[in-house]
């Protein structure tokens, strides 16, 4: 279904009436209208995952909280994104994510340019209440160009979805379950030995933390480019690299 020229679905977010496209989610229409809803796993250009739960919002007449990233808009939908309860939930969820891995900003390549760090500041996480798990995880530096440090991985699966849906290689996936879940390359071999990897680096570009990084980056030097995927997919959809004649 093609998008209409102008957004034509009225939605009320935090008291502001905004217009959405019929294929919008609560998160996408909020973003376009400058309404900030914290999120981590959501990434423009790839499929919706709904795993981090930071973007949960209150939709009137729904008896459960809904993730903004995966909730389609409906006419006259009334959404609240900033209630006290929602803020408390988000804060605790982020604390849980921080407690699960080994997130040590002071020695991280992404220090100062990290979505996880930014979220912590935004949500006012100045300490972590749940027990730190201090998992023992081994760094994979077998790839000639990139490193993977699972200590910093938050299992958002942006890399998994990007590699599978945009690059078409599906190098990454999640193995194990529950708190034993971890990221694997191909069938669990070192990344450098994973034959399906094309070295394209899109996974590194979209990683929200310092888990996937360029080799040779020192503390605070890594810059990710999460918008790359949306740029690529929209360019593909629009046929921007094709000769208009042959389209």
């Amino acid at each position, binding site marked *: 279904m093609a998008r209409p020229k102008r957004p034509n679905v009225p939605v009320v977010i935090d008291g502001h009436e905004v217009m959405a496209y019929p294929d919008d989610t609560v998160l996408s229409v909020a973003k376009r209208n400058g309404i900030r809803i914290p999120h981590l796993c959501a990434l423009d250009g790839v499929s919706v995952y709904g795993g981090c739960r930071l973007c949960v919002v209150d939709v009137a007449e729904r008896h459960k909280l809904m993730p903004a990233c995966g909730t389609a808009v409906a006419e006259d939908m009334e959404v609240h994104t900033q209630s006290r*309860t929602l803020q408390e939930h988000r804060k605790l969820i982020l604390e849980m*994510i921080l*407690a699960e891995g080994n997130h040590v900003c002071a020695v991280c390549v992404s220090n100062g340019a990290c979505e996880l760090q930014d979220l912590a500041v935004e949500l006012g996480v100045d300490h972590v209440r*749940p*027990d730190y798990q201090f998992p023992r995880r081994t760094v994979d530096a077998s790839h000639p160009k990139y490193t993977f440090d699972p200590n910093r991985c938050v299992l958002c699966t942006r890399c998994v979805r990007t590699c599978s849906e945009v690059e078409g290689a599906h190098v990454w996936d999640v193995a194990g*379950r529950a708190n034993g879940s971890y990221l694997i390359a191909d069938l669990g071999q070192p990344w450098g030995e994973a034959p399906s990897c094309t070295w394209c680096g899109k996974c590194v570009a979209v990683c929200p933390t310092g888990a996937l990084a360029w080799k040779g980056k020192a503390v605070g030097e890594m810059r990710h480019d999460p918008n790359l995927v949306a740029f690529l997919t929209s360019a593909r959809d629009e046929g921007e690299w094709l000769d208009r004649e042959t389209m």
Partner: protein
Amino acid sequence: MAKVIDLDDVAVQEAEARSRYRWRVKVCSSTACDASGAGPARRAVEHSVEEQGLEHDVQVVPTGCMGLCSAGPLVRAEPRGGQATMFQQVDPQVGADIVERHVVGREDLSQHQLDENLPFFTRQERVVLSNAGRIDPERIEDYVAEDGYRALVTALRMRPRGLIETIEASGLRGRGGAGYPTAKKWAMLHDAESDQKYVVANGDEGDPGAFMDRAVMEDDPHRVLEGVALAAYATGASKAFLYVRAEYPRAIKRLEQAIRTAKRQRLLGKNILESDFSLDVEIRTGAGAFVCGEETALLASIEGQRGQPRMRPPYPTERGLYGKPTMINNVETLANLPDIIRRGPEWFRGMGTRVSPGTKVFALAGSLQHSGLIEVPMGLTLGEIIEEIGGGCPNGRTFKAAQTGGPSGGCVPASFRDLPVDFESLRQAGSIMGSGGLIAMDDSVSMPEVARFYMDFSQDESCGKCAPCRVGTLEMHRLLERICAGAGTERDLALLEQLTRTVRETSLCGLGQSAPNPVASTLEHFRDEYTALLRNEPVGVAHG
């Protein structure tokens, strides 16, 4: 093309065959009785029949679950036209005695005789389990003799819409836990437009201590198949999957065999009973994940994907298996269908309560005189189930609380003995009906310890997709461990409560959303035990 089965013919022949025997000795060969030695007992009975030369007089029938698992192995000797006698704890010696002394000698075997006038038996109303313990599940003739597949014949003469209306009139609600109206789900799949629709039977019963669906699948597999066929006919599905957990090898074997037999008799497959309706049925086995009982994770598992739930909407009836409209019904729900069609919705409404009609199967366990598998009308009170049917706690212990709904449920204190057991009442009491696990606990039990046990289960069974469930259940388990060990603080308790709210309200699927229930319900009803542990005081009376 195979010949279509003549149900009347088979039923008559079966009745004749049965009437040739003076005695039918039924030996419970269900998983529970087998585990307590039903195999050797049955061989002893058979051997003794042979030895006495009674092969033409006494028929030995291996059956499904007779219910009172705590007294197993069970045997029921039924003389033609006479009063049957039930025997408990039948070892090979007792098995031989039943033939030699009871059947031949007409003696009483008092210490092994089981009174069938126990409330455990008399208070039950068996619909789903009506054949369990009575027929040989491996013979289709046995099922047909009990009016099996008659509902399918009736249904095939109806319009699918009419069938949905019948189910709607019966008020049947999903037996998998949430109690969603079955007819509503059916109507959604019926109205969905697609070249392919699927029906899935959910037999991935994963609650610890629950074995309702196992009994239905093992003891009356054809009933499940008939239910699946009815659901598929009503909704326009041409393919059905039975999703059974791999831990139920016997259920899988029985269902496989039943599918083969039913196909041969033209009760499944192409042009069922010479109608235009065709249905292909296939079994898929789970690989041991609790979360695969959640419908979207179950579908992912059937597709060969990682068994993880996804967001709803879209609901499976819109986009389900392989992107096609799909309806998932619990095995027990499906097993109710043949009787509803055959005996009418009014009959069904005559049992249970107004909003929760019918019966419910419970796996009754814990600190009870009599435990096992029971089927009772909805709305029986908790006290009636625990104290009358279950006979109360043994060894002079006092009934303290009942756990319902497994790791997704909660604990209801003994003061709720008058609580009717139905979907709404249990929810109001802070627990859920769930799939039918019901565990009685006595005064020796520490409730925070119960919460810790279930949280350990949930933190292990979380799929790991969403952060609140993956990390939250783990953190909650840690806090509970600390509190139970007497090392907890007020701060720990406060954090536990905050986690309870966040995990419940923000998790992706039903597993995470309900995982904090054991904690929340014990905090609600037994908060003093938590605070006692914070003061390092003992909780629960030690076993004497």
